[in-house]
Protein backbone atom coordinates (compact mmCIF):
# COMPACT_ATOMS: atom_id res chain seq x y z
CA UNK A 1 0.00 0.00 0.00
CA UNK A 2 2.78 2.41 1.03
CA UNK A 3 4.71 1.56 -2.13
CA UNK A 4 1.68 2.34 -4.18
CA UNK A 5 1.48 5.79 -2.57
CA UNK A 6 5.08 6.45 -3.57
CA UNK A 7 4.22 6.46 -7.28
CA UNK A 8 1.29 8.89 -6.85
CA UNK A 9 3.44 12.06 -7.34
CA UNK A 10 4.93 10.52 -10.48
CA UNK A 11 1.49 9.67 -11.84
CA UNK A 12 0.24 13.20 -11.13
CA UNK A 13 3.31 14.67 -12.86
CA UNK A 14 2.78 12.45 -15.92
CA UNK A 15 -0.91 13.38 -16.23
CA UNK A 16 -0.20 17.11 -15.79
CA UNK A 17 2.72 16.88 -18.22
CA UNK A 18 0.39 15.28 -20.76
CA UNK A 19 -2.02 18.20 -20.44
CA UNK A 20 0.84 20.70 -20.80
CA UNK A 21 2.12 18.97 -23.93
CA UNK A 22 -1.37 19.08 -25.40
CA UNK A 23 -1.78 22.73 -24.45
CA UNK A 24 1.59 23.82 -25.79
CA UNK A 25 1.20 22.04 -29.13
CA UNK A 26 1.72 24.81 -31.72
CA UNK A 27 -0.60 22.98 -34.14
CA UNK A 28 -3.53 23.45 -31.77
CA UNK A 29 -5.55 26.62 -32.31
CA UNK A 30 -7.74 27.27 -29.27
CA UNK A 31 -9.73 29.94 -31.12
CA UNK A 32 -10.69 27.55 -33.88
CA UNK A 33 -14.44 27.13 -34.03
CA UNK A 34 -15.64 23.65 -34.89
CA UNK A 35 -18.06 23.82 -37.83
CA UNK A 36 -21.46 22.24 -37.36
CA UNK A 37 -21.88 21.98 -41.12
CA UNK A 38 -19.37 19.17 -41.74
CA UNK A 39 -21.18 16.01 -42.92
CA UNK A 40 -24.43 17.97 -42.94
CA UNK A 41 -26.41 18.99 -46.01
CA UNK A 42 -25.41 22.43 -47.27
CA UNK A 43 -27.70 25.20 -45.98
CA UNK A 44 -30.61 26.64 -47.96
CA UNK A 45 -29.78 29.87 -49.74
CA UNK A 46 -30.51 31.52 -53.04
CA UNK A 47 -28.42 34.43 -54.23
CA UNK A 48 -28.78 36.58 -57.36
CA UNK A 49 -25.86 37.18 -59.68
CA UNK A 50 -23.59 40.18 -59.20
CA UNK A 51 -24.72 42.94 -61.58
CA UNK A 52 -21.96 43.62 -64.10
CA UNK A 53 -20.44 40.15 -63.80
CA UNK A 54 -21.32 37.71 -66.58
CA UNK A 55 -21.71 34.52 -64.50
CA UNK A 56 -25.05 33.33 -63.05
CA UNK A 57 -26.04 33.58 -59.38
CA UNK A 58 -25.72 30.79 -56.83
CA UNK A 59 -28.27 28.83 -54.84
CA UNK A 60 -28.63 25.58 -52.93
CA UNK A 61 -29.87 23.79 -56.07
CA UNK A 62 -26.62 24.51 -57.94
CA UNK A 63 -24.60 22.49 -55.43
CA UNK A 64 -26.10 19.10 -56.26
CA UNK A 65 -25.79 16.97 -59.40
CA UNK A 66 -22.45 18.35 -60.46
CA UNK A 67 -19.96 15.97 -62.10
CA UNK A 68 -17.90 16.02 -58.90
CA UNK A 69 -17.51 17.87 -55.63
CA UNK A 70 -17.59 21.66 -55.87
CA UNK A 71 -15.76 24.35 -53.95
CA UNK A 72 -17.58 27.36 -52.53
CA UNK A 73 -15.41 30.33 -51.71
CA UNK A 74 -16.70 33.28 -49.70
CA UNK A 75 -14.89 36.40 -50.86
CA UNK A 76 -15.15 40.19 -51.08
CA UNK A 77 -13.29 42.91 -52.92
CA UNK A 78 -12.67 44.73 -49.61
CA UNK A 79 -10.95 41.68 -48.17
CA UNK A 80 -7.20 41.97 -48.70
CA UNK A 81 -6.22 38.32 -48.06
CA UNK A 82 -8.85 37.34 -50.67
CA UNK A 83 -6.67 38.94 -53.30
CA UNK A 84 -3.76 36.66 -52.45
CA UNK A 85 -6.07 33.67 -52.26
CA UNK A 86 -7.57 34.54 -55.63
CA UNK A 87 -4.33 33.58 -57.39
CA UNK A 88 -4.26 30.20 -55.61
CA UNK A 89 -7.86 29.42 -56.48
CA UNK A 90 -7.34 30.48 -60.11
CA UNK A 91 -4.40 28.07 -60.33
CA UNK A 92 -6.54 25.24 -58.94
CA UNK A 93 -9.22 25.95 -61.54
CA UNK A 94 -6.79 26.20 -64.46
CA UNK A 95 -4.62 23.25 -63.53
CA UNK A 96 -7.09 20.75 -62.12
CA UNK A 97 -10.37 21.88 -63.64
CA UNK A 98 -11.77 22.51 -60.17
CA UNK A 99 -15.41 23.60 -60.18
CA UNK A 100 -15.39 26.82 -58.16
CA UNK A 101 -18.41 28.83 -57.00
CA UNK A 102 -18.25 32.15 -55.20
CA UNK A 103 -20.30 33.95 -52.58
CA UNK A 104 -19.59 37.66 -52.85
CA UNK A 105 -19.99 38.65 -49.21
CA UNK A 106 -21.25 42.14 -48.28
CA UNK A 107 -19.74 43.74 -51.31
CA UNK A 108 -20.70 46.57 -53.64
CA UNK A 109 -21.49 44.98 -57.04
CA UNK A 110 -19.48 47.72 -58.76
CA UNK A 111 -16.39 47.00 -56.64
CA UNK A 112 -16.78 43.26 -57.11
CA UNK A 113 -17.04 43.64 -60.89
CA UNK A 114 -13.91 45.81 -61.02
CA UNK A 115 -12.04 43.41 -58.75
CA UNK A 116 -12.95 40.42 -60.94
CA UNK A 117 -12.14 42.16 -64.23
CA UNK A 118 -8.74 43.23 -62.83
CA UNK A 119 -7.76 39.85 -61.40
CA UNK A 120 -9.75 37.53 -63.66
CA UNK A 121 -12.80 35.47 -62.81
CA UNK A 122 -12.20 31.81 -61.91
CA UNK A 123 -15.75 31.37 -60.55
CA UNK A 124 -18.34 29.43 -62.55
CA UNK A 125 -21.13 31.03 -60.52
CA UNK A 126 -21.17 33.93 -58.08
CA UNK A 127 -23.98 34.76 -55.70
CA UNK A 128 -24.23 38.29 -54.37
CA UNK A 129 -24.78 38.25 -50.61
CA UNK A 130 -25.14 41.95 -49.85
CA UNK A 131 -26.93 41.54 -46.52
CA UNK A 132 -24.63 38.79 -45.26
CA UNK A 133 -27.56 36.49 -44.52
CA UNK A 134 -26.29 33.63 -46.68
CA UNK A 135 -23.00 34.01 -44.79
CA UNK A 136 -24.86 33.38 -41.53
CA UNK A 137 -26.56 30.33 -43.06
CA UNK A 138 -23.08 28.99 -43.82
CA UNK A 139 -21.94 29.87 -40.32
CA UNK A 140 -19.00 31.96 -41.46
CA UNK A 141 -17.13 34.19 -39.04
CA UNK A 142 -15.28 36.25 -41.63
CA UNK A 143 -13.89 36.29 -45.15
CA UNK A 144 -12.39 34.37 -46.82
CA UNK A 145 -13.79 30.96 -46.02
CA UNK A 146 -13.85 27.99 -48.33
CA UNK A 147 -16.08 24.91 -48.34
CA UNK A 148 -15.97 21.65 -50.28
CA UNK A 149 -19.42 20.27 -51.03
CA UNK A 150 -19.98 16.72 -52.27
CA UNK A 151 -22.13 15.73 -55.25
CA UNK A 152 -25.11 15.01 -52.98
CA UNK A 153 -24.93 18.49 -51.46
CA UNK A 154 -23.17 17.41 -48.24
CA UNK A 155 -20.57 19.77 -46.81
CA UNK A 156 -17.31 17.82 -46.66
CA UNK A 157 -14.75 20.36 -45.56
CA UNK A 158 -14.35 23.91 -44.34
CA UNK A 159 -11.27 26.08 -44.48
CA UNK A 160 -11.27 29.27 -42.41
CA UNK A 161 -9.00 32.05 -43.66
CA UNK A 162 -7.06 32.48 -46.87
CA UNK A 163 -5.61 29.42 -48.61
CA UNK A 164 -2.24 31.08 -49.06
CA UNK A 165 1.20 29.65 -48.41
CA UNK A 166 2.64 26.18 -48.80
CA UNK A 167 1.13 24.69 -45.69
CA UNK A 168 -2.41 25.95 -46.34
CA UNK A 169 -2.33 24.91 -49.99
CA UNK A 170 -1.06 21.44 -49.05
CA UNK A 171 -3.83 21.09 -46.46
CA UNK A 172 -6.48 22.18 -48.92
CA UNK A 173 -5.10 19.96 -51.69
CA UNK A 174 -5.28 16.96 -49.35
CA UNK A 175 -8.90 17.80 -48.57
CA UNK A 176 -9.69 18.15 -52.26
CA UNK A 177 -8.06 14.81 -53.05
CA UNK A 178 -9.94 13.11 -50.21
CA UNK A 179 -13.18 14.62 -51.45
CA UNK A 180 -12.41 13.34 -54.94
CA UNK A 181 -12.47 16.80 -56.45
CA UNK A 182 -9.15 16.30 -58.22
CA UNK A 183 -10.02 12.94 -59.81
CA UNK A 184 -10.42 14.39 -63.24
CA UNK A 185 -6.80 15.53 -63.33
CA UNK A 186 -5.54 12.11 -62.27
CA UNK A 187 -7.83 10.31 -64.72
CA UNK A 188 -6.96 12.29 -67.83
Amino acid at each position, binding site marked *: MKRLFAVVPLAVAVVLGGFFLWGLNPERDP*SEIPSVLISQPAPEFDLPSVPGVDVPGLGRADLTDNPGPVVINVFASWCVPCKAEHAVLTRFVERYGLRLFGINY*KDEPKDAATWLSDLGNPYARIGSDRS*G*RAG*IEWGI*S*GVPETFIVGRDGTVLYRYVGPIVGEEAVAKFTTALTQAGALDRELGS
Partner: protein
Amino acid sequence: MIRALFLIIMLGLPGLANAVEPDEMLADPNLEARAREISRELRCVVCQNQDIDSSNAGVARDLRLLVRERLTAGDSDTEVIDFVRARYGDFVLFKPPFKPQTYALWIAPFALPAAAFVIGGILLWRARRRASVEDLSDEEEALVAEVLARHGRRDEK
Protein backbone atom coordinates in the same frame (compact mmCIF):
# COMPACT_ATOMS: atom_id res chain seq x y z
CA MET B 1 -17.03 70.24 -6.67
CA ILE B 2 -16.19 70.64 -10.35
CA ARG B 3 -13.59 67.91 -10.09
CA ALA B 4 -16.10 65.55 -8.52
CA LEU B 5 -18.59 66.30 -11.28
CA PHE B 6 -15.90 65.77 -13.90
CA LEU B 7 -15.01 62.44 -12.33
CA ILE B 8 -18.63 61.31 -12.31
CA ILE B 9 -19.10 62.26 -15.96
CA MET B 10 -15.86 60.58 -17.00
CA LEU B 11 -16.70 57.40 -15.10
CA GLY B 12 -20.19 57.39 -16.54
CA LEU B 13 -19.14 57.81 -20.17
CA PRO B 14 -18.04 54.23 -20.87
CA GLY B 15 -21.58 53.10 -20.05
CA LEU B 16 -22.82 55.07 -23.04
CA ALA B 17 -20.46 53.29 -25.43
CA ASN B 18 -22.94 50.75 -26.70
CA ALA B 19 -22.48 48.38 -29.59
CA VAL B 20 -26.22 48.26 -30.27
CA GLU B 21 -26.90 51.12 -32.62
CA PRO B 22 -30.19 53.04 -32.58
CA ASP B 23 -31.21 51.84 -36.06
CA GLU B 24 -31.04 48.23 -34.89
CA MET B 25 -33.43 48.64 -31.99
CA LEU B 26 -36.99 47.45 -32.10
CA ALA B 27 -39.86 49.85 -31.50
CA ASP B 28 -41.49 47.43 -29.06
CA PRO B 29 -39.60 47.84 -25.75
CA ASN B 30 -40.68 44.37 -24.66
CA LEU B 31 -39.22 42.65 -27.72
CA GLU B 32 -36.13 44.86 -27.54
CA ALA B 33 -35.56 43.81 -23.92
CA ARG B 34 -35.84 40.15 -24.92
CA ALA B 35 -33.46 40.75 -27.84
CA ARG B 36 -30.89 42.29 -25.48
CA GLU B 37 -31.28 39.35 -23.13
CA ILE B 38 -30.70 36.82 -25.93
CA SER B 39 -27.80 38.83 -27.35
CA ARG B 40 -25.99 38.59 -24.05
CA GLU B 41 -26.20 34.77 -24.22
CA LEU B 42 -24.65 34.55 -27.68
CA ARG B 43 -20.93 34.62 -28.33
CA CYS B 44 -19.51 36.73 -31.12
CA VAL B 45 -17.71 34.36 -33.50
CA VAL B 46 -15.08 36.91 -34.48
CA CYS B 47 -14.15 38.37 -31.12
CA GLN B 48 -14.92 35.10 -29.31
CA ASN B 49 -14.98 36.16 -25.67
CA GLN B 50 -17.45 38.97 -26.18
CA ASP B 51 -21.20 38.56 -26.45
CA ILE B 52 -22.86 39.87 -29.60
CA ASP B 53 -24.64 42.53 -27.55
CA SER B 54 -21.40 44.36 -26.81
CA SER B 55 -19.42 43.57 -29.95
CA ASN B 56 -18.83 45.98 -32.79
CA ALA B 57 -17.92 43.25 -35.28
CA GLY B 58 -19.90 43.07 -38.52
CA VAL B 59 -21.07 39.50 -37.96
CA ALA B 60 -22.19 40.41 -34.44
CA ARG B 61 -24.34 43.20 -35.84
CA ASP B 62 -25.82 40.81 -38.42
CA LEU B 63 -26.63 38.32 -35.69
CA ARG B 64 -28.24 41.04 -33.56
CA LEU B 65 -30.43 42.00 -36.50
CA LEU B 66 -31.24 38.35 -37.08
CA VAL B 67 -32.24 37.86 -33.44
CA ARG B 68 -34.58 40.86 -33.68
CA GLU B 69 -35.98 39.64 -37.00
CA ARG B 70 -36.81 36.22 -35.54
CA LEU B 71 -38.38 37.79 -32.46
CA THR B 72 -40.56 40.06 -34.60
CA ALA B 73 -41.58 37.00 -36.60
CA GLY B 74 -42.94 35.55 -33.35
CA ASP B 75 -40.19 33.12 -32.32
CA SER B 76 -39.74 32.26 -28.65
CA ASP B 77 -36.39 32.96 -26.97
CA THR B 78 -35.37 29.29 -27.20
CA GLU B 79 -36.34 29.12 -30.87
CA VAL B 80 -34.14 32.12 -31.64
CA ILE B 81 -31.18 30.65 -29.78
CA ASP B 82 -31.69 27.27 -31.48
CA PHE B 83 -31.77 29.00 -34.87
CA VAL B 84 -28.34 30.54 -34.30
CA ARG B 85 -27.04 27.36 -32.69
CA ALA B 86 -28.02 25.30 -35.74
CA ARG B 87 -25.67 27.44 -37.82
CA TYR B 88 -22.78 28.13 -35.47
CA GLY B 89 -22.97 25.19 -33.05
CA ASP B 90 -22.83 25.07 -29.25
CA PHE B 91 -19.77 27.27 -29.45
CA VAL B 92 -21.93 30.40 -29.69
CA LEU B 93 -23.60 29.69 -26.35
CA PHE B 94 -22.00 31.17 -23.26
CA LYS B 95 -23.77 28.50 -21.21
CA PRO B 96 -22.93 25.12 -22.73
CA PRO B 97 -25.88 22.69 -22.76
CA PHE B 98 -25.93 19.66 -20.47
CA LYS B 99 -25.36 16.64 -22.71
CA PRO B 100 -23.04 13.60 -22.90
CA GLN B 101 -20.15 15.60 -24.44
CA THR B 102 -20.32 18.19 -21.66
CA TYR B 103 -20.96 15.90 -18.65
CA ALA B 104 -17.31 16.17 -17.60
CA LEU B 105 -17.48 19.95 -17.84
CA TRP B 106 -20.59 20.27 -15.70
CA ILE B 107 -20.04 17.45 -13.21
CA ALA B 108 -16.26 17.60 -12.62
CA PRO B 109 -16.30 20.80 -10.48
CA PHE B 110 -18.63 19.06 -8.01
CA ALA B 111 -17.41 15.48 -8.37
CA LEU B 112 -13.67 16.20 -7.94
CA PRO B 113 -13.94 18.11 -4.60
CA ALA B 114 -16.44 15.50 -3.39
CA ALA B 115 -13.99 12.72 -4.23
CA ALA B 116 -11.18 14.66 -2.54
CA PHE B 117 -13.25 15.07 0.65
CA VAL B 118 -14.24 11.39 0.73
CA ILE B 119 -10.69 10.12 0.16
CA GLY B 120 -9.22 12.66 2.59
CA GLY B 121 -11.89 11.84 5.18
CA ILE B 122 -11.21 8.12 5.00
CA LEU B 123 -7.45 8.62 5.32
CA LEU B 124 -7.82 10.95 8.30
CA TRP B 125 -10.30 8.63 10.01
CA ARG B 126 -8.01 5.65 9.59
CA ALA B 127 -5.00 7.58 10.84
CA ARG B 128 -6.89 8.70 13.94
CA ARG B 129 -8.15 5.21 14.70
CA ARG B 130 -4.64 3.83 14.54
CA ALA B 131 -3.44 6.52 16.95
CA SER B 132 -6.11 5.80 19.56
CA VAL B 133 -4.86 4.32 22.87
CA GLU B 134 -5.36 0.66 23.59
CA ASP B 135 -5.21 -0.87 27.04
CA LEU B 136 -1.89 -2.28 28.16
CA SER B 137 -1.45 -6.01 28.21
CA ASP B 138 -0.82 -7.84 31.50
CA GLU B 139 2.91 -8.14 30.75
CA GLU B 140 3.16 -4.41 30.08
CA GLU B 141 1.23 -3.64 33.30
CA ALA B 142 3.68 -5.73 35.23
CA LEU B 143 6.64 -4.02 33.54
CA VAL B 144 5.26 -0.57 34.30
CA ALA B 145 4.58 -1.52 37.93
CA GLU B 146 8.13 -2.79 38.28
CA VAL B 147 9.67 0.34 36.75
CA LEU B 148 7.49 2.59 38.87
CA ALA B 149 8.37 0.67 41.99
CA ARG B 150 12.06 0.98 41.26
CA HIS B 151 12.18 4.63 40.28
CA GLY B 152 9.33 5.82 42.44
CA ARG B 153 11.27 5.10 45.56
CA ARG B 154 14.25 7.17 44.49
CA ASP B 155 12.07 10.17 43.58
CA GLU B 156 10.66 10.38 47.06
CA LYS B 157 12.38 12.59 49.48
